[in-house]
């Protein structure tokens, strides 16, 4: 092993090959982000088609068959190919930096997770061209999902979700190991930024919830392809088993989707209020508590399925308890801006909107936990309203806030504020126009997953409003996309230094974009919000006072975009490797073969060989190659 290896790990830093073989957590994070954005566009178009079909009664924009595929793929895409990967993007990029590490614990496993995610996404999407996309709703209730075995649609879903699950388990183990073993000196657990904490909680949620649905999916797969009888009612199989296995995963999953966004909000609010996060330990522990309690409430999705009143009462009350830690977060966020000096930059606007919209969605969640009224609300548009308020007004707004907040760190340029505000207001208005009316629709009896509705039930007008709202959202996000293109690709964005927002955490101490090895010298952490405390002291009144200039402060414009800045000799980072991509390609090919049994066995053979080649190559190659 050579001591002279520089931080540059690959033969070249440019070109497609460098991206395929990269093991740099920042590049992998960007890959996740770009993929998620692309899938957001696709999932959004699917939603627009759905909304267009529902614009008026008995329209024929889509056939029932097309509609069912589109709403299924919309839900699937948004949950698994948009929000989870965008969370993975932020976690990848910032978890190591926030804890003062140079990379994640297993850089190649990290690459493997990404490639397996993208191949799984492509596998699922290839179904549109290979006989039709999954059409059994994202929850795929048995025995509907095992009914038509001569059609492969739901096989794409069982296989695609399984491989996505493998990807997530690998990523989660990786993040857990990172958070526990890679922290910089002085970075105790309770000095970790809230975002890092929430990423850690999410990793645990996935690790312990995914196996349940994986087994369920495997059972469905066996039922569909090998005649197993797990869900065959006439042979004694019980369809409710699937619902349990799915929701034991599915409920923790919704917190997987929202907790990282809450982490982002907990970073953004203090920065723009110029105050520390109110009640840091409470915010952290309530996040952990949400995760923990989240494992005990899954059956609130099954209140009408016939579990019996005792189970229903128990799960109803358990569900309500989640409102307590969530409320703690809300109150602390309000406490954070209380008494602050609030700058309404775009990231702040989105974070504040997150809090407001999430409260609406959370409160409708609590009304679901009230079992008697849930028997009216279940599977209506009222539920659709609930989860879009927490998922779009909540999670997506949070991630968008994160994009505006950290864009300067990624690229060295700030997104345009004016465009950002246009984006924000259009998105906020469009969002409420779209999903607000759905509360009314649901309470007035409109079931979800229906491709048409008759006249005379009083639903037409609110549906039309919702559709108009959806198009407003499209415009909003086109503005966003234009902002990104303009700022980054057309180089029109304002250049900024290391620390454009007067930030509080470690990422703002390093150049934008950060060098491959992140930190020239491993930072030594003295406190929560370490960087802020390097810049500010508190006077007797408790007000912040700026200390004399420190390194890395806001107006240091010198080293933008120069990744080689200050690189000392001898920081060696793991070498690039194509084995992770190869192994995941093998898994994807195997998956494709499994969809098309029995002649898919040929593909499975190829896939397994490719996978083993990748895995063995990977586990035997040295981490840092000699050059």
């Amino acid at each position, binding site marked *: 092993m050579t001591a002279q290896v520089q931080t540059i790990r690959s033969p070249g830093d440019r070109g497609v090959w460098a991206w395929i073989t990269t093991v740099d957590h920042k590049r992998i994070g960007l890959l996740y982000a770009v993929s998620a954005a692309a899938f957001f566009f696709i999932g959004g178009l699917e939603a627009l088609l759905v909304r267009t079909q529902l614009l008026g009664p008995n329209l024929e924009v889509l056939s029932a068959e097309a509609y069912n595929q589109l709403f299924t793929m919309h839900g699937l895409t948004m949950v698994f190919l948009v929000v989870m990967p965008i969370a993975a993007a932020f976690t990848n990029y910032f978890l190591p930096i926030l804890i003062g590490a140079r990379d994640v614990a297993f850089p190649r496993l990290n690459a493997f997770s990404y490639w397996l995610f993208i191949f799984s996404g492509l596998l699922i999407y290839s179904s549109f061209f290979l006989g039709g996309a999954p059409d059994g709703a994202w929850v795929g*209730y048995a025995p509907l999902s095992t009914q038509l075995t001569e059609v492969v649609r739901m096989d794409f879903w069982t296989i695609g979700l399984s491989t996505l699950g493998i990807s997530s388990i690998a990523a989660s183990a990786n993040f857990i190991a990172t958070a526990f073993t890679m922290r910089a000196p002085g970075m105790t657990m309770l000095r970790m930024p809230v975002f890092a904490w929430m990423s850690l909680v999410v990793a645990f949620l996935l690790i312990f919830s995914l196996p349940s649905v994986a087994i369920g999916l495997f059972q469905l797969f066996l039922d569909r392809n090998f005649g197993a009888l797990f869900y065959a009612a006439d042979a004694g199989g019980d369809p409710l088993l699937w619902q349990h296995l799915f929701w034991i995963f599915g409920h923790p999953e919704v917190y997987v989707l929202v907790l990282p966004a809450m982490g982002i909000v907990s970073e953004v609010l203090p920065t723009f209020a110029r105050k520390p996060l*109110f009640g840091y330990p409470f915010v952290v522990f309530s996040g952990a508590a949400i995760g923990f309690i989240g494992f005990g409430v899954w059956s609130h999705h099954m209140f009408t*399925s016939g579990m019996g009143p005792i189970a229903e009462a128990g799960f109803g009350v358990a569900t309500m308890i989640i409102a307590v830690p969530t409320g703690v977060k809300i109150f602390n966020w*309000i406490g954070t801006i209380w008494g602050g000096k609030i700058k309404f930059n775009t990231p702040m606007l989105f974070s504040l909107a997150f809090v407001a919209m999430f409260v609406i969605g959370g409160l409708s969640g609590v009304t679901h936990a009230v079992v008697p009224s849930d028997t009216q609300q279940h599977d209506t548009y009222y539920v659709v309203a609930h989860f879009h308020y927490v998922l779009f007004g909540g999670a997506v707004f949070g991630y968008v806030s994160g994009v505006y907040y950290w864009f300067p760190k990624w690229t060295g340029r700030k997104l345009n504020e004016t465009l950002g505000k246009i984006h924000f207001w259009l998105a906020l208005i469009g969002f409420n126009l779209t999903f607000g009316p759905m509360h009314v629709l649901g309470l007035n009896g409109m079931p979800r997953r229906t491709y048409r509705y008759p006249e005379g039930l009083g639903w037409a*007008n609110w549906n039309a409003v919702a559709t108009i709202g959806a198009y407003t959202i499209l415009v909003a996000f086109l503005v966003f996309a234009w902002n990104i293109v303009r700022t980054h690709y057309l180089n029109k964005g304002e250049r900024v230094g290391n620390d454009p927002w007067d930030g509080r955490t470690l990422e703002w101490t390093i150049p934008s974009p950060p060098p491959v090895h992140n930190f020239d010298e491993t930072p030594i952490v003295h406190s929560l919000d370490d960087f802020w405390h390097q810049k500010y002291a508190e006077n007797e009144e408790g007000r912040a006072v700026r200390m004399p200039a420190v390194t890395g402060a806001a107006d240091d414009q010198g080293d933008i975009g120069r990744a080689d800045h200050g690189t000392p000799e001898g920081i060696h980072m793991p070498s690039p490797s194509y084995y992770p991509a190869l192994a995941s390609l093998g898994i994807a090919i195997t998956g494709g073969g499994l969809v098309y049994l029995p002649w898919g066995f040929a593909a499975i053979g190829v896939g397994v060989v490719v996978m083993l080649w990748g895995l063995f190559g990977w586990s035997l190659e040295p981490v840092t190659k000699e050059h």
Partner: protein
Amino acid sequence: MGEAIVRARYQTTPRLGRLLRVVPVILLLAACSGSGPQTALEPEGPIARDIDGVWDLVLMLATFVFVLVMGLLVWAMWRYRERPGDETEPKQLHGSSVIEVGGVVFSVVLLAFISVPTVRGLLDIRAVPEGDDVLHIQVTGHQWWWEFEYVDETAADGRTLITANELHIPEDVPVYLTMTSADVIHSFWVPVLNGKRDVVPGRVTNLTLIADNPTPPDEPIPGQCAEFCGLAHADMRIKVHVHDAAGYAAWVDEQLLPSEQPAPETALDAGWQTFNTLCTACHQVTLEDVEGEVTTHGPERYITSDDIEFRSSFGPNLTHLFSRDTFGSGTFTLDADHLAEWIDNPESLKPMWADRNDLANGRVLGMPDLGLSSAQIEEVVDLLETWR
């Protein structure tokens, strides 16, 4: 709203024209649209009213929390916004245990307040109705229609009353539904009478309906399958007709009678021959022939869940087809023209997968196109029209 809701006749809609026509009027209309006949907010029976009461309470509390939290948030945003020229930095508050504990106590108290009616309401709506007057009906969910067997109403020969999609019940009487599914999970839901209950293959679930008042004959209460059950889930509707006691008894008597089988060589016999060779593969009819013999034609099928036997067949029982107002699971107005259109090409009206039917294994995914000539169709429709 006094429109003839239920009658909403299926129509093909020109795509763009309709899209454009709708857009401008929307916001205006949205403001004044009522809640519609399928709403959970205007209950017409004691159970739904109980649920609505719980809902009102919870909504009130949620509104309180909402106003409080939003008020604090917006106030803080306004009060503590950065003002131009203000150079002072804010006080660096790190937290306050009092506020944390206060927040927790606040939430816990509210939730305790909500959980009491939750549990009580839950036990109420799940209670099994008792008494002699309880009417028992067995419900079988099918892709994509409903079958109702009135196990308490039997004809002299022991036949139970069977009908489809349109449920007739007496007012003020607890109607106890015992439900299962022939294929996938469905959910029985008539919002103004009660919440929904899933209909699960291999399991039995129950639901109680009690209706306050009789419905006008042309304005039954609408309901709908609420669990995604595949292709035509949207078109799996329910109509509930509520009668006064006498009206209900009359309806039962009429339904229990057989319809008439045309005598050989009559005008209607041609239609019967077609019907008896093709349609009875799936549909049951109970007919009395010229000799006065009563026969039930069509497949006899039993579904057993949890040791309860559900009498069933592959398609709706047609004995008194024309006593109904709708067909296609409450989706289309029933009249001769419409029915002819349906028989000619069922999938042009309602999405189905009849080509994937597999009767031997009990899988029915819709009514097939039987390839009848228009003359044959007319004969069959003429026949069906006599079955009232």
